[in-house]
């Protein structure tokens, strides 16, 4: 997958401590790790933005081993659910976590990561095209995974490299987790062209992040809508960051106001601001708004990436050819993933989508063919870039708090939870914030005497305050 030796002497990685590794060194680390695994199998990679985690990801793909990427701080219960469902042969974890897995045996330790052997041996057959597994929501702990193939990753990586015009002089600093499709796509595209990755666990609200960005001469980073709200709040638009060449945005719809502000900033400062759209189901990316159109078309998610194609379908499944008509967005391209896995047996499934993804997002296009997301079909929110399914959240709450009823609605970055017990508000927020790993500020709880339902017992979300409008 990765031709690391083509870029032998190029700088591959700069770590948080300032250590630098070339592509040749990265390759050696990968081989050291994967030489401990005899044949193709399933491995969990518990991710942090650290070298050990990167070596796992890159090494496993190169050695034809299939990693499931999970965040290292995933809730224990959810991790156990994934372990029991998919029964991986190995797990690669930060060494400071290794002692928690008392039943697994240590196989290899390096770069502060430890490879552990589980008691499982090839429990499920792996389809030969299967390269990588990612979670769909990551946070509500549904062990539903997206199955990505080698061809998917290669196709999407090449498209992104092409439209962003990347070369080996780039240096991206990590702002997104390595288990998150957008974070992975940044890694993929940079490795593809022999560019450098600056790995940091520090966030935008920490001084160390900005020091590293400047000291390592980062040329780009990516962010979800909430990232841009924070950047705006930090008065990023007034910062002097000479090495920075471009910023990308994905993971949900940025408000048109912020889109316009950052587009203007880019033009005034000779930088690029590129708004994009994608889903894990499409490997990562489906569209981008070319930087030169960023201001003129602010609010738009642009055009299909090279090699991809969009169409809109109406409720009867017919294609829409008129501009400014809303329909469901359908994407066609080689980066459309194989399908989902919900149990171990699903890992042997082949391609179920044949290159066509019905996105579940409602969109329109303008006279010039630029697309705009206007809503979504399914009941989920994007919270800080993470997909959070509202029905799953309800299920989690109802299972934990059996004594009262609840209903979840809201808008992106702000979920509203209605409950029928006026005393349980704090408890519910603590519980759901703990389960999802999302900050409690994303949730508000309202007391309601009774959840409005129709005769069939279905919750009438539209009757709940705030109506479920998802724009």
């Amino acid at each position, binding site marked *: 997958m990765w031709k690391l030796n083509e870029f032998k002497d190029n700088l591959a990685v700069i770590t948080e401590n300032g250590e630098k590794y070339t592509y040749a060194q990265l390759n050696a680390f990968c081989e050291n790790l994967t030489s401990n695994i005899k044949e193709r199998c399933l491995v969990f990679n518990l991710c942090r933005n650290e070298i050990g985690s990167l070596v796992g990801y890159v090494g496993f793909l190169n050695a034809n081993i299939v990693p499931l990427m999970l965040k290292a701080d995933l809730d224990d219960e959810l991790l156990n659910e994934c372990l029991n469902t998919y029964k991986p042969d190995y797990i690669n974890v930060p060494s400071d976590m290794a002692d928690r897995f008392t039943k697994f045996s240590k196989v290899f330790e390096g770069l502060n990561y430890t490879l552990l052997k589980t008691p499982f041996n090839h429990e499920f057959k792996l389809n030969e095209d299967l390269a990588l597994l990612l979670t769909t929501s990551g946070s509500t702990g549904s062990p539903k995974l997206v199955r990505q193939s080698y061809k998917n990753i290669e196709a999407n990586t090449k498209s992104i490299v092409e439209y962003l015009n990347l070369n080996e002089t780039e240096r991206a600093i990590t702002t997104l987790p390595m288990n998150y499709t957008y974070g992975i796509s940044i890694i993929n595209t940079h490795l593809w062209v022999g560019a450098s990755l600056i790995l940091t666990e520090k966030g*935008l609200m920490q*001084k160390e992040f900005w020091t590293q960005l400047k000291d390592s001469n980062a040329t780009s980073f990516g962010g979800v809508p909430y990232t841009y709200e924070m950047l705006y709040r*930090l008065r990023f638009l007034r910062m002097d960051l000479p090495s920075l060449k471009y910023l990308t945005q994905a993971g949900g719809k940025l408000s048109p106001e912020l889109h316009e502000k950052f587009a203007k900033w880019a033009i005034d400062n000779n930088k690029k601001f590129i708004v994009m759209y994608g889903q894990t189901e499409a490997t990562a990316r489906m569209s981008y708004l070319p930087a030169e159109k960023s201001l003129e078309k602010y609010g738009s998610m642009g055009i299909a990436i090279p090699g991809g194609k969009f169409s809109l379908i109406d409720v009867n499944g017919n294609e829409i050819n008129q501009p400014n008509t809303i329909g469901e967005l359908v994407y066609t391209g080689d980066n459309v993933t194989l399908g989902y896995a919900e149990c171990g047996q699903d890992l042997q499934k082949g391609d179920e989508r044949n290159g066509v993804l019905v996105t579940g997002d409602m969109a329109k296009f303008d006279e010039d063919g630029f697309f705009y997301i206007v809503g979504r079909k399914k009941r989920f929110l994007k919270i800080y870039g993470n997909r959070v399914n509202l029905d799953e959240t309800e299920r989690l709450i109802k299972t934990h708090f059996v004594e009262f009823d609840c209903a979840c609605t809201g808008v992106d970055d702000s979920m509203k939870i209605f409950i029928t017990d006026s005393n349980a508000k704090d408890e519910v927020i*603590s519980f759901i*914030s703990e389960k999802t790993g999302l900050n*409690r500020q994303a949730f508000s709880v309202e007391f309601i005497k009774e959840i409005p339902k129709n005769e069939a017992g279905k919750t009438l979300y539209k009757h709940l305050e705030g109506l479920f409008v998802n724009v």
Partner: protein
Amino acid sequence: MSNLEKYTNAFVEAFEVTPQDATNLKYQDIKAWDSVGHMGLVSALEDAFDIMMETEDIIDLSSFEKGKEILSDKYEIDFSK
């Protein structure tokens, strides 16, 4: 309310912790104090003291103690009052 009480209250509000727990807190000690929580804390402090914090101070506010230092040195908040 004294300035220290106001200050502590901002942490209590932002992170749902007790005033006792607030006094030893550092960034990322608890889940609530991540980048999202940090924004909430800054807003709470700005409202409580009617100030506008500079970027360098926002990203330097890495603990309860550090925040006190920043507010007294740069925003003339007197914690003995």
